[in-house]
């Protein structure tokens, strides 16, 4: 296992303790956005940035936050960054903002952001908290992009809106509905657990 805390944090968040297939967080958005690869990329980049900056800020003020209002303060900080991103996009990158549509607002509801704020940023220095948030977002992105490739390809016959499958291909309607994401997430979990099992068994 990596000794370097930077590397260890990255490996933990992307593989060992992945937010999707280990922590089972952020499942709502996983079901909602992964029938389009473009939307998935946009959403996951937003989540990664918001997690990173909100973890950084919460870590910075953690010693000032009273326990009674700890979580509501975290929510304010997370909402602040999400709204800031939304305002700046609308003003300076309006085309991107239009493409994102409701996804920016949905970032607030992502459990991963709150999870990292509560589990990591409350107990660690600001910069490693920033890194933790960013890599958690990358772990989330990795899984969601994989799911979106499968769903968009089979559901619409396209990737990033570009037609890939031949005209004779009949789209699988189930793939654009939320239940298909459940099936694929379950299969990814199965695969990830299977991959981890020999390693952990071997250690015993």
């Amino acid at each position, binding site marked *: 296992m990596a000794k370097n805390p930077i590397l260890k944090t990255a490996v933990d968040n992307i593989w060992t303790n992945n937010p999707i297939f280990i922590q089972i967080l952020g499942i709502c958005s996983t079901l909602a956005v992964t029938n389009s690869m473009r939307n998935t990329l946009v959403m996951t980049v937003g989540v990664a940035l918001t997690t990173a900056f909100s973890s950084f800020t919460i870590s910075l003020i953690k010693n000032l936050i009273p326990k009674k*209002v700890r979580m509501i303060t975290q929510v304010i900080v997370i909402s602040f960054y999400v709204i800031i991103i939304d305002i700046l996009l609308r003003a300076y990158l309006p085309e991107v903002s239009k493409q994102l549509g409701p996804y920016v607002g949905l970032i607030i509801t992502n459990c991963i952001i709150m999870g990292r704020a509560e589990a990591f940023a409350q107990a660690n220095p600001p910069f490693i908290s920033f890194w933790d948030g960013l890599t958690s977002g990358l772990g989330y992105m990795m899984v969601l992009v994989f799911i979106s490739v499968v769903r968009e390809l089979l559901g619409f016959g396209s990737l990033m809106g570009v037609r890939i499958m031949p005209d004779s291909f009949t789209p699988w309607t189930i793939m654009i509905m939320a239940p298909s994401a459940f099936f694929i997430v379950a299969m990814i979990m199965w695969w990830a657990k299977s991959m981890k099992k020999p390693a952990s068994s071997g250690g015993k």
Partner: protein
Amino acid sequence: MNMNKDSIVYTVIFSAIVCLLFVGILALVQASTAERVAAYAEASRKAAFLNSLGIAFKDLNEAEQLFNTMLTPIMATPGTEKGTTPSPEATPGTAKSVSGTAKGATPGTEKSVSGTAKGATPGTAQTTAHDKQSSVAYRAVIDGIEYFAVEQSGPGLWGTITIILAASADGVIRGIEIVSQNETPGLGGRIDEPVFKKQFVGKKTINWKITVRSGSEASAPQNSAANAIPGTGTGAAAGTTSIPGTGTGAAAGTTSTPGTGTGAAAGTTSTPGTGTGAATGTTSTPGTTKSVSGTGTGAAAGTTSTPGTGTVAAAGATSALGVSDGYIDGITGATRTSKSMEVIVNKALETIRALIDAAGGTTVNG
């Protein structure tokens, strides 16, 4: 000062400071970018009008120029400073006036094309710069053909959908643009994708209506001579003694009972229809919302009109419809949004038809 972090006083002060700080920063950022956002929104709206009319442009600056030179406002937003189209130059008594204009009629109350004088022709000579900004309908002549583009809003699954639809006087859709929508991302939200919007380009409407097929309807039978027979469905028209159809846009002859659907119109002796926009002859009371056709003397199926040939009358058995005319394929998995689009598009088409009628033009069965 050493204050206990868990005390009520500290908690209140901390919470107040955190709220003020973060909300204050947000307010500052919002205020400093508001003008920029509003300018982009207006520019995008103009670009959307051009897109719906199929007018190409390189950037928003060019779009602004084209918008100002090629588009003429013909209808203003009700309730705005110059909320109604000026009427002094209108010629009273012309046929096919817009709703709310019949003698004794009560004007429509919601988004109707009311407010014009009896038989008014839109007074474009009265147009001001303000009108140009607040108008929700525009006219443009492209390659010698006159097109009308209107902005129309309606309820979607999760919020309001606003579109801009352009069509010609013969009921052929020029194009559609989605100005705003809050539908489910990846499902209903796909109404904004080119693959959906392209279906509208050049689409021939049936009696100024389109049908968005969704779910099992997607495999339903398409147009045939049979379903274009008078009195049987959408846009049905009736002869002198016939009973009109009950579908949308039904028109009736002199002695007939009017239809009950949207835009139903009746002859002189008929009973008023009960549906939206239903109207009768000179003493009639039009519907309360979006009344369009059949609005009184000279209109649709009024006293001087030829029975059964009202504005919205369909050609019946003689109509030649293509197999896909009037049909749009909905978004798979988004039946509610698809049906909402059908309603909004049809309202826009209804408005365009009314505008053309008001201008003294002749609408043709699509």
